């Protein structure tokens, strides 16, 4: 398995479907861990960095789950490949733009990615489609425990798992759920959700996590506090309170659009489809914005001629690195936008049931 083979696939967790998938795109669980007896990365020499990478790489390879992973040396990777991994949420932007030896072990099906030498020595990340934190967590804790059988993680009686930044200390657990909230945006009620999130001590960020803007109608919600609450408590808060509340707000907003302004709703959705089907030059931002409206239209059964799978594929495939990898060459500005428009037209054409 290598990166080039991933281009023609859609990560398992990015496919359409899963619990509450009308609003919840994906669920992610992340644990931050550091090897005991080593410095954190800000004070590690290049030799120590390399040793950390080797130790963790060997540990992963020695375990059962590791046999179904492939390793990408991020330091040696081409910038497009790094960007490609960011677009697929397999590595963070920070990891892509970092320095020194580092990598990522990716499981087949892309449901798990273990980043080595990001901000901490190890970041275990597990992804699932829709709202499925249980499953994501169970795999995470199994992998964490398996690794603890072969390496020792830095641990402190008072603080728990030690991390380079005190904002991750304790459980090292960050739970993130990606939400698609187009109706709340259209009805100008998005602040309701943001306020609710704030009250619940959560962070809301853009599509690509830390330091990224909220792009289009996609929002990532995650916990801020990693210390003083058990893993179960953090996860349960999310799946039984936070996310259901937000899903409820979004569904209500969609219902309101359907009953109070169906013409305006249809106009948005069909204009989006019209542009996507006819544009000859399109930026990734515009594509994302329109695909968001189309996704909503399909889920609300306003558009029945396009399947959701096509939209999921396009959401990923229209992004710059994906487009360039698909075509197998570097593309600059205008040419990229032209080829993006072409790709969208073709894919939507295939998506029509009459062509199946």
């Amino acid at each position, binding site marked *: 398995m290598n990166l080039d083979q991933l281009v023609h696939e859609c990560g398992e967790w990015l496919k359409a479907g899963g619990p509450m998938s009308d609003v919840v795109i994906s669920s992610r669980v992340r644990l931050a861990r550091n090897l005991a007896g080593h*410095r954190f990365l800000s*004070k590690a020499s290049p030799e120590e960095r390399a040793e950390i990478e080797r130790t963790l790489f060997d540990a992963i390879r020695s375990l059962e789950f590791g046999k179904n992973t492939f390793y990408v040396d991020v330091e040696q990777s081409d910038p497009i490949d790094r960007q490609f991994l960011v677009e697929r949420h397999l590595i963070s932007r920070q990891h892509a733009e970092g320095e020194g030896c580092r990598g990522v072990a990716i499981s087949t099906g892309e449901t798990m990615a273990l980043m080595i030498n990001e901000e901490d020595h190890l970041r275990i990340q597990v992804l699932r489609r829709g709202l499925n934190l249980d499953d994501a967590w169970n795999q995470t804790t199994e992998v964490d425990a398996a690794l603890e059988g072969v390496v*020792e993680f830095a641990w402190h009686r008072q603080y728990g798992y*030690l991390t380079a930044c005190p*904002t991750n200390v304790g459980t090292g657990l960050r739970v993130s759920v990606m939400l698609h909230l187009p109706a709340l945006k259209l009805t100008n009620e*998005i602040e309701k959700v943001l306020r609710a999130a704030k009250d619940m001590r959560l962070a809301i960020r853009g599509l690509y996590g830390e330091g990224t803007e909220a792009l289009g109608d996609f929002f990532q919600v995650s916990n801020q506090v990693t210390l*003083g609450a058990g893993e179960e408590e953090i996860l349960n808060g999310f799946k*039984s309170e936070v996310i259901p509340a937000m899903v409820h707000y979004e569904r209500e907003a969609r219902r309101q659009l359907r009953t109070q302004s169906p013409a305006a709703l249809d106009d948005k959705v069909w204009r989006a489809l019209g542009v996507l089907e006819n544009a000859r030059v399109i930026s990734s931002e515009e594509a994302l914005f329109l695909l968001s409206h189309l996704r909503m239209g399909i889920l609300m059964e306003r558009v029945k001629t396009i399947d959701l799978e096509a939209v999921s594929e396009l959401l990923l495939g229209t992004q710059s690195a994906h487009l360039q990898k698909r075509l197998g060459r570097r593309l600059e500005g205008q040419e990229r936008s032209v080829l993006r428009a072409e790709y969208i037209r073709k894919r939507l054409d295939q998506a029509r049931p009459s062509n199946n």
Partner: protein
Amino acid sequence: MVCQQCKKHPATVHLTDLVKGEKRERHLCEHCAATEGISFKQHVSINEVLNSFLMTQAGVQELIKMRCPDCGMSFVEFRNQGLLGCPKDYDVFGEALAAVVQRAQEGATHHTGKRPGQTVKLDPRQQRRLELQRELRAAVEREDYERAADLRDRLAELDKA
């Protein structure tokens, strides 16, 4: 970059919107963004925590002198970059760090989660129970008693199993 709205504070909220097909970028400060109902609370910035912390400390001189014998990290360096140098720093920086942690973690001071070697499994039945209870509340709220009765039965069944 300065906020486009007030032209005074630094812009920390960056938005890309599409207005009639035209990409429009907006850069606002947190305050102006909030008054527009756009508010993106970032993760507690460690730098903010550190800044506010140091200003309230009387023993700044003491802090400046602290340095880890193992990795060489000084408290001042940590303050500037927000990242610690090695596990030992958590002890070397003692109470000063404890206060930083407490601020960053909304008052929490001790880990209460899993310990090395443990696994914490979530019980899928518990998850199902929570879902049913939530649906039940919603059904009662909209006075759909038929659905509520059905949900109550399913909850009872789940408890029996």
